[in-house]
């Protein structure tokens, strides 16, 4: 069972929910797919036990000794990455078009480190994550690698719980593809509803079973009703409605998952969601 927690947009409480599920399911392997700004390890803490550089892109490199400054590379580059016979690595996509036109063979593509993949041992199981190089290209590839690392550590068909990426682009597709179920965290706001519909169509496209939980549902109860109504029509289970709870912020600042606060209202609801998921998938986790 691979469960991805996703949201269409950041800040809906995705990591709060994902960290809680990760904390509750001690046997699962956790994956932080938000490689741009990974946060799960901040909450789960633990110790890094493996680290590896990830070469996710290529960058053109001009040998100034061979270059005769003909400018053909600059002309052919569609990303404006070459100026004054120098390559801007932030703009270069490593497409190799410049190497084709260079008659002096002065340009070579070099593998570029776009991040570091890390396995962290937490006291609630293993966490696979990454640190992406700032501004790097190809975050989707890095997500795929982080997921592969998790699979490599899976022994007895444990659950994989993934904290997804915001948005609907390449990194999100890499987080969602091949998962069995997606728990979509939705905020009852105008923008939350729009983002939900966009990410839902993506999840449907990949054939992943969607579930919904509404976070801070009491901020706008009319909108909550609207979302519930929509889900009912579409046959999507709303597994829970998490109330606005100041304790969540306290938990974040204390660097603890909200479910470690037994008295918190949000925590109780998340535990309920977790129990429902376990019941649906009838597995011991």
């Amino acid at each position: 069972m691979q469960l991805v927690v996703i949201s269409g947009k950041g800040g809906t409480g995705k990591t709060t929910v994902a960290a809680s599920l990760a904390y509750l399911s001690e046997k699962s392997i956790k994956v932080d797919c938000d490689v741009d700004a990974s946060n799960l390890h901040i909450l789960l803490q633990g110790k890094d036990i493996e680290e590896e550089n990830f070469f996710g892109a290529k960058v053109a490199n001009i040998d100034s000794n061979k270059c005769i400054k003909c400018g053909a590379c600059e002309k052919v580059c569609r990303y404006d990455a070459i100026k004054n016979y120098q390559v801007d690595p932030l703009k270069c996509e490593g497409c190799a078009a410049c190497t084709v036109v260079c008659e002096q063979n002065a340009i070579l593509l070099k593998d570029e480190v776009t991040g570091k993949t890390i396995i962290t041992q937490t006291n609630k199981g293993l966490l696979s994550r990454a640190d992406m190089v700032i501004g790097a290209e190809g975050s989707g590839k890095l997500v795929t690698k982080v997921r592969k690392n998790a699979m490599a550590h899976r022994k007895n068909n444990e659950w994989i719980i993934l904290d997804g990426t915001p948005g609907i682009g390449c990194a999100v597709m890499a987080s969602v593809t091949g998962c069995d179920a997606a728990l979509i965290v939705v905020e009852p706001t105008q923008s939350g509803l729009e983002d939900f519909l966009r990410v839902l169509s993506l999840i449907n496209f990949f054939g992943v079973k969607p579930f919904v939980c509404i976070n801070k549902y009491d901020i706008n109860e009319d909108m909550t009703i609207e979302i519930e109504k929509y889900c009912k029509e579409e046959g999507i289970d709303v597994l829970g409605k998490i109330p606005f709870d100041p304790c969540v912020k306290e938990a974040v600042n204390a660097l603890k998952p909200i479910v470690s606060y037994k008295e918190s209202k949000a925590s109780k609801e998340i535990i309920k969601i977790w129990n429902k998921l376990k019941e649906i998938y009838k597995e011991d986790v």
Partner: protein
Amino acid sequence: MKIAVLSGKGGTGKTTVSTNLAKVMNWDYVDCDVEEPNGFIFLKPNVLKTKKVNVPIPKIDDEKCINCKKCVEICQFNALAGTNTGIILFEKLCHSCGACELVCPVDAITEEERSIGKIDIGQSEDIKCMRGVLDVGEPMAVPIIKELKSLIDEKPTIIDCSPGSSCSVVSAIEGVDYAVLVTEPTAFGLHDLKIAVSLVKEMKIPFGVIINRAEEENDLITRYCKEEGIYLLGKIAFDRKAAVLYSQGKLLIEDEVFRKGFEEIGRKIEGVKRCN
């Protein structure tokens, strides 16, 4: 004058800051968060024009193709695959670089256009508003962001960026005069702010910070900014009222207290603009 609003991470209030500032400062607004463009919900512009965003992809003429697979070899994105009977294109993997066309010895490759999203252009009172919308299922946002930015004119403009620090953000903030980093006073906020700070520093863009959902005078972000000598443009108070207005798709400046706060931040940004 272009100002980019970014955050390292989603949900910190980037769109709230961009839309409210655009309104109080009377600047144009461009939503470059093309995966989840939400700014129009709050600014409610009349959309006057919509245009498709196309990218070029290779078209292979099977009659001419001699199946030498040179195009497959050169393609760095695995968008072309060779079979015994011909070349297959996976169009979503294509980065539109044109390398395949360059290496084809028999000129069997030409280019055709493929739509990946759209740009909406509208007007909210005096403000020109533009947004890019990436089609669901399309992986690449950058071509839409680039096209959006090419449509920005000389008027002062606020650019709302996507979350994170990947290629989409780099492309959105490239060439802006100033960056506004929005964060919140939590450990997560600080972690993500540091990522955004390194990005703008690497790209040599001057910047300031706005703390959203601020509760106390001397929070961890304020302390961090002081230690690092980072200019604090202002704070937006943590208030349930803000969450309610946001959920209804309303601008915070409908509330007098918030309006004054944004006006103050706007004045500071104008000040920075003069200094630069």
